[in-house]
Structures are given as structure tokens and as C-alpha cells.
């Protein structure tokens, strides 16, 4: 039955997150962006909301309702409404946990998942994106070669959140024999793994992301995500796009609301600028795009939860949300005029953040 109302549990979750984003993320976002550093207590408080266990089944310590992708999308929209960079920072360990959940062997799930249902935030991450203008998320260049029961990884990765402090990272690489992409669990300190420079980015500044290089990094065969069967990479990449979509909707909605409130208050020519069609129509268009994008995210998430093939959906979705996020945030700056360009207002930061979605295909967070 077609329905567009979150469950009561999901509504309560959204409310709880909203209180957090309003009181914590919104208040610290500007300074965190300026300093390229997140306040530790804000991140801790976010983790203490216990969102990730809500996506993990109870046999591994969580309490998932079976709608992990939808619930995850609702949560991420609300977090990104507060601040997408702080949200990704807080949530980054999920990129490891959820990869295990979606594609790990039973043993891998038993080993790794319970820690993510604890109060303390385990530091872990995932490495998928590579530093190349022709980066193809479906076919990463990082290679995996089988050698005497081990896997040897070689390549370059970038945009790896928390890589410097992560205890372990899922690294995605292409099997040199089969051409298949799998994830490999690589422990921090493994010989040949070098954490490089912190990425200097236009936006997403409050989340430390790093480049890393893999030079003959040797991983035991059982550390391949999904074991002998290998990794369901398609699911992970598709879900990453749902997550990015949800984050983009949050950013777009934030920008819309801010510009709307500004347009009601800013008086020029003797009247609030919101009473002019030139401004009002643009806001109406943004409102439509934000809602449309949200519905597309929900539909893709619903299909993901049902295990349906969604590559076509997420490809369409990815292109749509990239555009929507730019339109919404560019409109935010435009409605504020010159004031929108000044960093006292958040809209310019949201515009910088929104452009990031084009670069982040593969940041797997749902």
C-alpha cells in the first residue's frame, strides 16, 4: 500500500535527532567549518543518540525495524539539516559497520557489529573513492592480487573519513583475476598502509578526510568482506547513493528554510522581498525539488530494504540529488543577495557543501 508517513518510531527518532541538530550541530557548524575541526563533545552526543544500533539486527546487538535504509535515510536527512559535515564526521564509523552488515559473513558480523551498538564510538572507516578525474566508482583502480592465501592490495584512495584514527578500514579493490570489486578489512598499522595528507576541501571541512596509499598491503583471505563469496559491492555502492541523497535533501531543506525566513524579513522597496514573485517563485521551485528528491530517496531506500535491484534507480537518483542540492543552496545564496556571500550566514557554507555530493559517490553511509 502506497504511503508516505514514517512510523511512530521513526517519527520519534526524527524528533530526537532534530533536538540534537538544533542544539548541537547548528550551533557549532560555523566554527567547526572555519577551524576545520569538530568539537569532540558534539560528536560524542550525536553518537549517544544510538542511531546506528537502530539499523543493526538484534542478534548483533541492535534493534533494527527491518527498514534500515528508510530509517537511515530519515536519520541522515535530519542530521544533514543540522550540518552535513559534522553529521558525516559523527556517522563515519557506520561506513565500516554497514558494509559488514550488508555484505559480511556471519563470522564477520559477530566479530565486528556488537561494538557499534555500544555507547562508545568505535573508530572505523571505509575507503572507496580514488584521486582521479576519471574515477569510476564501479571499477576502482586499486588492485587485489591473491598470493598464498593472502590478498595483496595496491593503489591510492582519498576522501577516507577519520582514516588517521580509525582502527580498521574497509578498502574496496578490484580483483585482478575476476575483475570483481570486493572490500577488504585492513587494520591500522598494517605494513604498506600509509595514511597521507588530510584532504583540503571546498566544503565538508568539519570532517577530517584523508588520502591513503596501499603498497603491497597483505591481508589474510578471511578478511575479505563476504569471505569466499566475496562482497556484494553493488548493494554497498547503491546504498551509498541513497545515503548521499538523504544528506543532500537535508542540506537542501536547510537552505530552503533559511532563505524563506530571510525573504519574509528582508525589506526592500518597502516590502519583504518574499512578496515579490521573482523571489517567491524561486523558493517555490526549491520546495518542489527538495520534496521530489526526498520521495526519490525514500523510494530507492524502500526498494533497497526489499532487496530489489536498484542500480538504475540510484544512478537516476544520484544525478537528481546532485542537481537539486546545487539548485537549493545556490538559490539560498541568491535570495540573500550579497549577504548570502558573507560567511556569517550559513548559506554559502551549504553551497560549498552541496557541491561535494558530486565528488562523494561511494561514501557508503547507509
Amino acid at each position, binding site marked *: *500500500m*502506497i*504511503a*508516505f*508517513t*514514517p*512510523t511512530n518510531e*521513526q517519527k520519534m527518532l526524527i524528533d530526537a535527532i532534530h533536538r540534537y541538530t538544533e542544539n548541537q550541530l547548528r550551533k557549532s557548524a560555523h566554527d567547526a567549518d572555519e577551524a576545520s575541526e569538530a568539537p569532540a563533545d558534539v560528536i560524542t552526543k550525536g553518537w549517544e543518540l544510538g542511531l546506528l544500533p537502530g539499523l543493526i539486527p538484534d542478534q548483533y546487538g541492535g534493534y533494527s525495524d527491518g*527498514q534500515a535504509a*528508510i530509517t537511515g535515510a530519515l536519520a541522515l536527512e535530519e542530521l544533514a539539516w543540522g550540518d552535513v559535515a559534522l553529521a558525516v564526521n559523527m556517522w563515519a564509523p557506520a561506513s565500516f559497520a554497514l558494509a559488514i552488515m550488508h555484505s559480511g559473513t556471519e563470522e564477520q558480523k559477530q566479530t565486528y557489529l556488537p561494538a557499534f551498538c555500544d555507547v562508545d564510538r568505535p573508530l572505523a572507516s571505509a575507503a572507496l573513492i580514488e584521486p582521479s*578525474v*576519471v*574515477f*569510476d*566508482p*564501479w*571499477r576502482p583502480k586499486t588492485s587485489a592480487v591473491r598470493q598464498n592465501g593472502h590478498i595483496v592490495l595496491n593503489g591510492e584512495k582519498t576522501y577516507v573519513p577519520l582514516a588517521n584514527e580509525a582502527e580498521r578500514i574497509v578498502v574496496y579493490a578490484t580483483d585482478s583475476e575476476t575483475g570483481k570489486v570486493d572490500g577488504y578489512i585492513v587494520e591500522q598499522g598494517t605494513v604498506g598502509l600509509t595514511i597521507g595528507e588530510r584532504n583540503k576541501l571546498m566544503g565538508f571541512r568539519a570532517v577530517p578526510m584523508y588520502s591513503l596509499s596501499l603498497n603491497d598491503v597483505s591481508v589474510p583471505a578471511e578478511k575479505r568482506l563476504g569471505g569466499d563469496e566475496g562482497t556484494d559491492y553493488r548493494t554497498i555502492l547503491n546504498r551509498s547513493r541513497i545515503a548521499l541523497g538523504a544528506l543532500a535533501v537535508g542540506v537542501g531543506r536547510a537552505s*530552503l528554510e533559511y532563505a*524563506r525566513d530571510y*525573504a*519574509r524579513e528582508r525589506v526592500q522597496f518597502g516590502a519583504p522581498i*518574499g*512578496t515579490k*514573485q521573482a523571489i*517567491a*517563485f524561486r*523558493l*517555490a*521551485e526549491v*520546495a*518542489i*525539488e527538495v*520534496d*521530489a*528528491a526526498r*520521495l*526519490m530517496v*525514500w*523510494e530507492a*531506500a*524502500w*526498494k533497497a530494504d526489499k532487496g530489489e535491484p536498484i*542500480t*538504475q534507480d540510484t*544512478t*537516476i*537518483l544520484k*544525478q*537528481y540529488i546532485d542537481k537539486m542540492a546545487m539548485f537549493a543552496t545556490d538559490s539560498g545564496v541568491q535570495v540573500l543577495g550579497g549577504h548570502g556571500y558573507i560567511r556569517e550566514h550559513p548559506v554559502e557554507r551549504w553551497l560549498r557543501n552541496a557541491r561535494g555530493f558530486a565528488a562523494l559517490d561511494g561514501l557508503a553511509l547507509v
Partner: protein
Amino acid sequence: MIDFTIPEKVKQQTQMAEMVATTIMRPTARKYDENEHDRPVEFIKFMWPVMADRQKSTLEKARRKAEQADTDEPENGNKKENIANLSMLFLIEQLAWGDVAQYLSLPSAGLGGFAIEAVATLDQKERFLSRYADSKAKPAWGAMAMTEPGAGSDTAAICTTATLDTETNEWVLNGEKIFCTSGKLSLDESNGLVVVWATIDRSAGRAGMKPFVVEAGTPGVKVTKQEHKHGIRASDTVAIVFENARIPYDNILGSPEVRDPEAAGTKGFKGAMKTFDLSRPVVAASAVGVARGALEVTKEKLADAGITIRYDAAPHELTAIQRDVIEMEGLLKASWLLTLRAGSMLDQGESNALESSMCKAKAGQASTQICQKCVEILGPMGYSREWLVEKLMRDSKIADLYEGTHEINLLIVARRILGYSSAELR
């Protein structure tokens, strides 16, 4: 719960509609486009019993509801899911995919029916809608007449008048209406009716505007012009002149009071404006159907030429056309989901004025853009009248114009999100 499962009943209905679309509408679509004022008889003949049964069950539902209200019986746990509006949107999307111009000629009470359903008393529903519920009788059409030469989006400028003749207790209508869809079918070619918007007090502005039911055969009512249009040529679009047209007092829908507080509420102008809560999603659904048709043909023809859409290609490997197609698929999906949301809210009894304008604005524009792009992509063959895509482009444009232009719907969305009245945001 957020859910996108299509109910089994709707799936079956869609299959039936697809059959009609494929076997009846598509094969005749070109013929009725080229012969503008001919009636799509094959489609009408097939759909009349279907539509009559639909009307019959709607009427029966209205009767039951009235009975329940009379006896004050509480609805005893009758929590059956209402999917009437969603189901209609799926039906219309599929029929519009077949041929939106023929779909507009559906034998039914049409937009007039929407207005009657929204505000009429049970007695009025019986009087006016029974003719659409008898599958054994001849097909009948209904229409709505709002637009005038001097009143398009500015409905408050309507100057067709309705004056009460107290001696005969009749309303006397004078004025001219234009762009009335299925007007000739309703008045000249069947025992139908037209819901006519007229003012009973020009000084009262909108509060003075009331809908009146004018039945076929009423003296003083004349269809004066059949329009020649850019697209949807199989659809009947006419001008109607009223010269001292007399109708019974009870043909007014809703309250006749101008300054009755009730009249300003659910029963008067605002109440009847609720017609748009459904008619806009309906237009959006038809726009989606047209665009889906164009996009499907385009993808098929491209595939025949060896061009398929690779959804798992790197962005830099996509050709411009592949990217265009993916973008169009996004526009289509966005439009359809917004449309379903508006319909679902209506089924749940929620107010959806914002959402219905959102889906109409989006779908009308997206459908136009998609169809124009499809003609472009298919090049010399897209522009050819041998294929249907050029027709779809002409047909699609209407969805951005009727039931409120794109701009009027944006205005409504803007007012709602900014919290402005129509006086504050003009």
C-alpha cells in the same frame, strides 16, 4: 509506514488500462490527431461501461454515507483502506500513456463531476450523476466552464452572471465561457451537463462566485466555437454562450449565500476550489503518462540504433544522450512520486492544496521538457509525423497550461510555504 507497494487491485486495473491503451488508443492516436473534431468512437465505446460502473459505485457510496449520517451510526471499525484517488491516478497515467487526447474524451462526468462530488447534496448527486452510472444507456459527458475571454488565471474577474428570478425561482445565466473541455460532447452530443461558474454578486468578488449545473437541452445555451489546438486534438474544446439561460433554483452547488460564513468555508467557493485538489494530481498523472510514452519510445528507438543506457558507467563515459535520458528519467520519477503523494493525502483525508500544486507544477513542466527533448534526440525521425513523438510533444504542453498554468501553481506553492495570503503575494 513509508511504503511504495502498488495494491493488487490497482495492478489489475493498470493491466486492463494498458490493454486499452495498446489495442485501442495507440493504433488510432494518429488518426484522431489528424482529423481534429472526429470523436474517438472505439475508445468511447469501450470505456463507457467501465466508467459507468465506477460512477455507479461512487454514487452508492455517497448514499451509504448519507444513510450512516442520518442514523448517526458510528463507523463500526470499517477501516478499509481508501485508495480511490491513488487508483484513479494510476488509471489516468496509463490511459494518457495510450493517448492523452482520447483520454480527455472519457465518457464520464469529468471535471463537472469533480465539482459535484466535492460540494453537492445527495439529492443533487442523484439528479446529476445518475446519467453517468447507467452502462446500458448512451454515453454521457460532463464538463466544467470557468475560463472566460477576460478571466483566465484571474478567476475573480469572471463576469458571467446568474440572477435569481424570484417569480419562477430560476437562475438566469448570461455570459460567455471559453476553453471548455468536452463542452460540445456534454451539451450537444449527449444528455450531459456543464458546471458553470457565475457570479451572483459582482461587488462581492470571489464570495459571489457560485457553480451552477447547466444540463444539455437548456434553452439559451449555445456552443459557439470548436477550437483548433496545438495538441490534444481529439479532445473537444469549445466556447459556450449563455443568453438568458434558465435553470432550476436547485442547480446551484453549495450555498447561495454571499456573506454566509458557511459559504466562505467548505461549502462555497473555497469548497468548490477543492476540485483542484484532485484535478491537479489528475493532470499531473496524465502528464507523466505522456512523458513516459515519449521516453519509452525514445529509449526503444535508441536501442534499435545500438545505443543503450548504461546505469553503471562512470560519469565521464556517458554520452550526452545517455545523460539526457537519465536526467529525463529523474524528472519523470520526481513528477510521479509527487503526484502519488498528493493523491495519497487525498485518500487519507488530508489537506493537499500545496502538494497538488507542487505535483502539477512539476509534472506539467517536466513532461513538456521531456517530450521536447525526445523529439530533439530522435532528430529527423522525431520531428516526423510518421512517429508519435512529435504529437506527444504537442500533447504534453497542455499540462503546463490547464488546471492553473505552471506560474499559477508556483504562486500557490509560494504562498503556502511563505505563509502569505493572496493579497500579500500577488
